[in-house]
């Protein structure tokens, strides 16, 4: 008996205009683990990730068919509450995209839009918990009113993660979250992800195979809009079933 999948897609196809970006993707992403999606640039891995919180809706002329179930709820149905969905499925982007607001207000924004604003000391408590979870509290507790752009890139990216965590999501999508960071900061953020996966379902898109190997429990390999293989990370990197996967892992292309 397979474990319950947190996210499950069935025959997922996506078109940007006439471009067929995703073809028949069937993936089962397990709960409370890190799932990495790897593949060469333009293979559709970011597109797939953006399906899970329907960020592709923002791109004009996008058409999606198939089924994406999160906790057995098809999120492609038109009556899906996108606001609730995006609270439940948080997203961290490639470049740290903190708002040009104070650190405190960066975190407060999410609470406000989801009507989670309560008494001031409760907000402060949430902000504190959020920053503690990403290991920023000790550094930043005395300068919460500073503009978030004064932080280092690593701190900014951690703040972006905190901004998602504070909304108490189930799933966190990370779109190449370390590509703007230096190697040491990358390792530290990866450590953070290992801690977070005890409580959250993490899906990380990366073109860095070592990163996928280090950080993930499961790995999906995508190529030209198709999911070629999905298995335990260990298996993908030591004994892949598909020749294409093996070639990519060995660095023959991509």
């Amino acid at each position, binding site marked *: 008996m397979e474990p319950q999948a947190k996210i499950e897609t069935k025959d997922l196809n996506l078109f940007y205009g006439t471009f067929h970006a995703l073809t028949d993707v069937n993936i089962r992403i397990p709960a409370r683990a890190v799932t990495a999606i790897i593949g060469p640039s333009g293979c559709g891995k970011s597109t797939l990730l953006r399906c899970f919180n329907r960020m592709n809706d923002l791109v004009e002329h996008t058409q999606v068919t198939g089924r994406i179930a999160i906790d057995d709820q098809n999120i492609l149905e038109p009556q899906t509450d996108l606001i609730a969905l995006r609270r439940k499925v948080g997203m961290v982007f490639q*470049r740290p995209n903190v708002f040009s607001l104070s650190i405190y207000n960066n975190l407060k924004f999410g609470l406000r839009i989801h009507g989670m604003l309560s008494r001031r000391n409760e907000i402060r408590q949430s902000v504190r918990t959020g920053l503690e979870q990403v290991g920023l509290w000790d550094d930043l507790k005395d300068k919460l009113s500073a503009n978030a752009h004064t932080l280092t890139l690593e701190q900014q990216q951690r703040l972006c993660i905190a901004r998602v965590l504070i909304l108490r999501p189930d799933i966190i999508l990370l779109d190449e979250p370390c590509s703007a960071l230096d190697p040491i900061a990358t390792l530290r953020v990866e450590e953070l992800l290992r801690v977070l996966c005890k409580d959250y379902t993490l899906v990380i898109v990366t073109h860095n195979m070592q990163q996928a190997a280090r950080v993930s429990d499961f790995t999906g390999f995508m190529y030209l809009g198709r999911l070629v293989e999905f298995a335990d990370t260990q298996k993908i990197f030591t004994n892949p079933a598909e020749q294409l996967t093996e070639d990519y892992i060995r660095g023959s292309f991509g």
Partner: protein
Amino acid sequence: MPNNSSESIASHAEPRRSEAGMLASVTRWRRKIGEPIIELCIRLSGILVVVFVFLIFLFLLRDSLSLFRQYPLRRFLFGTAWLPISEPPQFGVVPLLLGSIYVTLGAIVICVPLGVGSAMFIAEVAPKHLKNVLKSLVEILASIPSVVLGFLGIIWLAPVLRNTFHLSTGMCGLTGSLLLAFMALPTIISISEDALISVPRTYREAAFGLGATRWQTLWRIVLPSASSGILAAVMLGIGRVVGETMVVLMVTGNAPVIPRSLLQPLRTLTATIAGEMGETVGGSDHYYALFAVGLVLFAITFTINLVADLFLRRARK
């Protein structure tokens, strides 16, 4: 550096020596004579602009100061009556200053919400084809000569206002405010729109990713991020309103009295200068008083532009 490389090419490629040598000499000529000439021209035009501004200011100052030899500065600044041809004449700038302030404030109240609102619509909401149409319409709006607007004000807007508010005359401050608001709109819209558009796309993505609606994103993230640029747009719009002459001369009724409301005829600083300059005798007190009015106006617009510039500089950071 390029000079070195051309010499090294010349020494390596023997048969091409003369050609390369000629090339080098052309480059050398350009560097020795051409460049300095161009630089001098550019430098000169830069300096000239500064000199002109400075001379204008000096000229204004000199002629204004001539007034204050005959007429006390205090009575000019705080005098409540502008009666230049009575005996003795009174040159109190307060009615004119208040006229300008009233009309400007009225225009701001009208054009700032409207302008920023349209900028928000064009930058964030309108679909692409509508956006292009609107942007060119705004540009056309900017190119309407003020005298045409003034004409429309006299024959159409003033009667409408007179009937609406049951006034004795439609030539009043409000008419001027409405038309000036109209004139400041293009400035405010296009600069605010630039400010909104230059807010990074990633901010919007982040906000949408957190579950924000379009309006929440616009109101809480995009607008605050663009606030410096929008403030600069507003200041530049105000600068245009304060300095505008033709429209107010035509429609505000030209009554240099202290206005009690925008529904009364009044007169601005600019309209006073334009309206009276033709009737004065060169070198008379009246003539110099108009220069002093110009100096007050200059001080106001200078301050506004300075503030706008400060905001723009902050916006660029």
